[in-house]
């Protein structure tokens, strides 16, 4: 089964991706939760609008590390391009996070593929569920252990730079060859859970074409990593650029930038 991952651009990357499991959840039966977690039913109700029909779908690929080596930056990549039926939204939920909803991606005219990073405290599944009217909700996911066998320094606590330094700075690039667009925003993404630090996080990010028409949109929530980087995939016509990026946060700040091919 093909994926839109670019692992094969690196030597031996395709074979390694296959060996890694390809981001496919261990689906046993379409209507049974491959992670057998009590949160799934609750989160379907709370964050997915209680879809009447759902299935665990191996075409929903979710690529993650096996362990949260750095609990504040766990890289995730979701690829729903294998689905043949429509996708209007992809909802990312983390089963055992105090704030389970990480983001809602509206791919629009972009491909249903998204890379991002999340904070991870407790071992458990992260899920990506594709939604559209008239078709079942399709869920894929991966189990992430909260602590790796790593620890050559698992949590060497890095001192945090003053968040106001470079706040809002936007970096990005359009890769016309692959249609990839990557954008990074310097933002603390404070959850409000830490003592004395109020919630302050990005809430919306939008891609716009040369005419100012929307391409894709993301609703961002607290579990998204500090200084987040997002990876999109655009069809060939849009990959020619330019693409405008606009974002805003919970304190009313606005951010913008533009990438060209």
């Amino acid at each position, binding site marked *: 089964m093909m994926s839109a*991952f*670019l*692992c*094969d*651009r*690196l*030597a*031996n*990357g395709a*074979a*390694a*991706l296959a*060996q*890694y499991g390809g*981001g496919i959840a261990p689906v046993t039966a379409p209507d049974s939760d491959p992670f057998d977690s009590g949160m799934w039913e609750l989160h379907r109700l709370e964050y997915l609008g209680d879809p009447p029909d759902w299935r665990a779908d191996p075409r929903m690929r979710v*690529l*993650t*590390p*096996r362990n949260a*080596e*750095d609990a504040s*930056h*766990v*890289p*995730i*990549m979701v690829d729903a391009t294998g689905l043949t039926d429509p996708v209007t939204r992809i909802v990312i939920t983390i089963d055992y996070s105090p704030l389970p909803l990480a983001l809602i991606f509206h791919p629009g005219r972009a491909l249903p593929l998204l*890379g991002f990073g999340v904070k991870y405290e407790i071992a458990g599944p992260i899920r990506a569920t594709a939604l559209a009217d008239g078709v079942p909700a399709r869920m894929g996911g991966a189990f992430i252990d909260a*602590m*790796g*066998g*790593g*620890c*050559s*320094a*698992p*949590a*060497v*606590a890095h001192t945090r730079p003053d968040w106001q330094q470079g*706040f*809002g700075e*936007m*970096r*990005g*690039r359009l*890769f016309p060859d*692959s249609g*990839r*667009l*990557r954008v*990074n925003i310097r933002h603390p993404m404070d959850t409000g859970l830490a003592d004395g630090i109020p919630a302050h996080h990005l809430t919306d990010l939008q891609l716009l074409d040369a005419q100012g028409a929307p391409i894709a949109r993301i609703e961002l929530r607290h579990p998204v990593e500090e200084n987040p980087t997002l*990876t999109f995939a655009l069809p060939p016509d849009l990959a020619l650029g330019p693409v405008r*990026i*606009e974002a805003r946060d919970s304190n009313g*700040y*606005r*951010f*913008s*930038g*533009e*990438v060209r091919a």
Partner: protein
Amino acid sequence: MITRRTALLTGTAALLTPLAARATDPGYHLKPAEIADGVWLIEGAQDSFAPANGGAICNIVMLRTDQGAVVIDSGGTALHGAALRDFADQRLGGVAATLNTHHHPDHWFGNQAFADRPILALPATRGLQAQNAQALSEGLYRILGGWMRGTVPLPAATAVTGGNMVIGGRELRLLALSGHSQADLALLDPTTGTLIAGDLLFLDRAPSFPDADLDAWRGALDRLAAIPASGIVPGHGPFMRDSRAFAQTRAYLDAFQDRLGRAADLGLAPAETLAAGPMPEFAGLGANPEEYHRAVVQRWRDFEDMALPLIGGTA
């Protein structure tokens, strides 16, 4: 051809005992080898921290002196340190002093067993030991469980700098370097010509990168390579009389930098770069692919920052 070393020096015996006994009564079974006159090497398992090895993963060197052993790195747990101390007491007339090559826990979490004698480290290492002791300790308790029993990390009490030093009548040359971490101490034993490189050198085991600065690391390798040595002890991997550890470590740093630089420049996301696995020529090294997976997470931002130009800001 490099193959993964499967026989764990300290884990083999533990694997033969029943599971319950292993969980409650871990034991370290050292296999010290005299690699040069008065130079003892206790080789670590070529793997990551795991219950199978009890955290005994780095190389420990002891140099015989008139006043006991100079101990270079103290092990990954209090119990590991105690086993090393027993060997020094029984075979080398006690301990003259201990040195910690850098602040990663496999190299100094055994310090408690040596606390009655001077424990020395570079100034920056001492600071990093104090600053990170708690977080590192929590991580290791989670991974190693009972092996960590009684371990209370004890940072080195005394600062040293580079230069010549005489301990117990044995002359030592200390080199203050960096690159694997913010401060890396390497030692030359001029009596035998043995170079003890700490984690600036790895052999047959994938280098770890949590605090790596690749350019500084390469600079440190240049300085070490200029020292005439009769034998080389890497931080992880076997003792060799040739310069294989230099060639392999340098090639790994270059190949890793090339792979991540290429990935970032092609628009790959970090999860894809991780899943694409290690550089094929290094896939079989000890601790890989796990060490590569960790390294991608640890170092990705360095490469991303270079690949993504500034395109905007607050509106």
